[in-house]
């Protein structure tokens, strides 16, 4: 029984989630682009690569904006959270091996100890966001159930993956939960607020273009 489930989640469903992620992302970005061309042509007319990049750079380099400098702890957590969130699954030995097995391609991988630390960083980040959400009035005011749900969705594959990697009791169950939740997370990116990953370059780049090109001012 466990074996069957394992077979399904680690076989066809991996494909499904990857296709949903890739095709979904392309669809979201392209359809949004088409909508912009139809109803928000300003976005396209005023987009300016130089100013877009100028703004994006000021917001993906830690502490390059005044807003980030004003909240040093939040910035540190947000950056380490996002960096570990994206890099850990890509450079994890277990994942690299699985990909090598199926496609016979492989790349550099993280030493286990470091992967463990990065996994814990992501989990800690989720806990930080959770507490912040619960106790800071201005964040709580913006929060509804979906925000907690999304945080749980991010934490799930990391927590269960860590559990499995430590070979703690219930390894099989943890692994199945891990793989399943990982797939759900990946597939959900284009269709939930995680799509901020796809749209970040556009929202920031557009504002950067407006500020740089039209308003001749900094936006960081």
């Amino acid at each position: 029984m466990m074996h069957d489930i394992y077979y399904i989640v680690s076989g066809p469903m991996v494909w499904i989630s990857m296709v949903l992620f890739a095709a979904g992302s392309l669809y979201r970005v392209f359809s949004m682009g088409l909508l912009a061309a139809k109803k928000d042509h300003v976005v396209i007319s005023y987009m300016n690569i130089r100013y877009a990049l100028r703004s994006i750079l000021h917001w993906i380099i830690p502490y390059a904006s005044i807003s980030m400098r004003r909240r040093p702890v939040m910035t540190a957590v947000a950056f380490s959270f996002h960096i570990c969130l994206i890099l850990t699954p890509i450079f994890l030995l277990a994942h690299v091996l699985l990909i090598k097995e199926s496609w016979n391609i492989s790349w550099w991988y993280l030493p286990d100890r470091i992967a463990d630390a990065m996994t814990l960083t992501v989990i800690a980040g989720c806990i930080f966001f959770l507490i912040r959400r619960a106790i800071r009035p201005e964040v709580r005011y913006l929060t509804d159930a979906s925000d907690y749900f999304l945080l749980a969705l991010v934490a799930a594959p990391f927590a269960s993956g860590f559990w499995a990697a430590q070979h703690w009791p219930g390894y099989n169950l943890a692994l199945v939960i891990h793989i399943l939740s990982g797939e759900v997370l990946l597939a959900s990116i284009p269709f939930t607020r995680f799509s901020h990953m796809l749209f970040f370059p556009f929202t920031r780049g557009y504002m950067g273009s407006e500020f740089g090109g039209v308003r001749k001012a900094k936006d960081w």
Partner: protein
Amino acid sequence: MSYWGFRKVMSVSAKALPKVLDDSIDKAADRLAADQISAVIERLLYNEGGARLKTYMETCAHCGLCSDACHHYLSNNKDPKFSPAGKVRQTIDLIIRKKGNVSIEFIKRACEIAFTECNLCRRCVLYCPFGIDVAYLMIFVRRICHQLGVVPKFIQDTAHSHSATFNQMWVKEDEWIDTLFWQEEEAREEIPGLRIPVDQECAEIFYSVIGPEPKFRAQLIYQAAVIMNVAGMSWTMTAKPGWDSSNMCMYTGDHEMTARLKKVHFEAALRLKTKRIVMGECGHAFRSVTDVGNRYLGWKAPPLPVVHAIEFYHELISNKRINIVQKFDKPVTFHDPCNIVRGGGLHELARGIIDKTCEHFVEMHPNREHNYCCNAGGGIINCGPPYTSKRVRSNRVKADQLRDAKSWGARTIIAPCHNCHGGLEDIIKFYQLDMDIKFFSDIIYGCMDKNHPLTTEAIKKY
């Protein structure tokens, strides 16, 4: 009396925001039928709600980082209802989730939020990591209110004036021409032979002012005329509609009138075959001409160069068309108006003028792109007396910022924007700051050499 004519005596003691007495929102909203609301909203969401609306709403991570940007939030004891994303949540977010099926009470509240709790100042864009434009979202809400006919009456009155007369203050044509002649006559006593050219073709400069100038601040026309004449500029104003560059329709959500107003303004300048528009010291007018109106007309940029007074004065001083012979001796600080600094990047030029004309300069903090709004902008002051008290209380941080600048020595605030003057005057009075406010033209007029060789030369030509 204040410039806007409606300042009341207020006591500093009360804590909570006062109850607002504006029945126009209630009256207008109570007339609405429920299906009318959803029909109007659905139509607007479909026709005008495009990629920006969708992306902003979906991308917002609900992180609250924008809160610290907003003076409404900071001044109201960090009440999250006043944070940028908080205002979005109470308005457009729910409107979209309910697909427009919202109640009359909801529309009243949304109207109050969008018109009187956000200045469209875009400071929050500098604090949101995604650059989500809350001002755009609040304009969308105002647009909905406008289409429902639910708009605070004082600002709607200015919009009506714009529609009927193409100026903001119901100034009639003869009154306008009279004002120009009157100012010309007065200024001739100081500078014999001075002229305010009206409808003169092929002048280099089309000079435009805003409606409140002939109405309340005619001395600004006087000063501009002196500066133009002393510098020997080739300039003209127009007697016809189009002399007023202001645009309150931009703030009521009336995009169609916004575009018509700008069209009339541009056409007035083009009809006279002038080479560029020079505008007086106004912020929202600058935004409407250089950033908003041209877009609604389908133009990426204005059809002829548009120059704000700051750029113009800077040019005159650097080219030595006017000579500064003495410096303003009281210590000054500078209030960066949102629409020409965050919206026009004129902050360094402004400091350049101060450097040339003022003895002693104190920066207020934060400054430049990060300066706090005066809380008059975005049409809030134009919503009139019912909201004055709320407006002033909702900008305690501005008072703190000014008080700091004062403790560092500043006595005079330079604010090259009409709305900022109105807003800061009220703040100074309410918080008993005892500072005075000036335009650049006040300073330059006072410090320039009025016997420049160019002056006599130009005047001789007439």
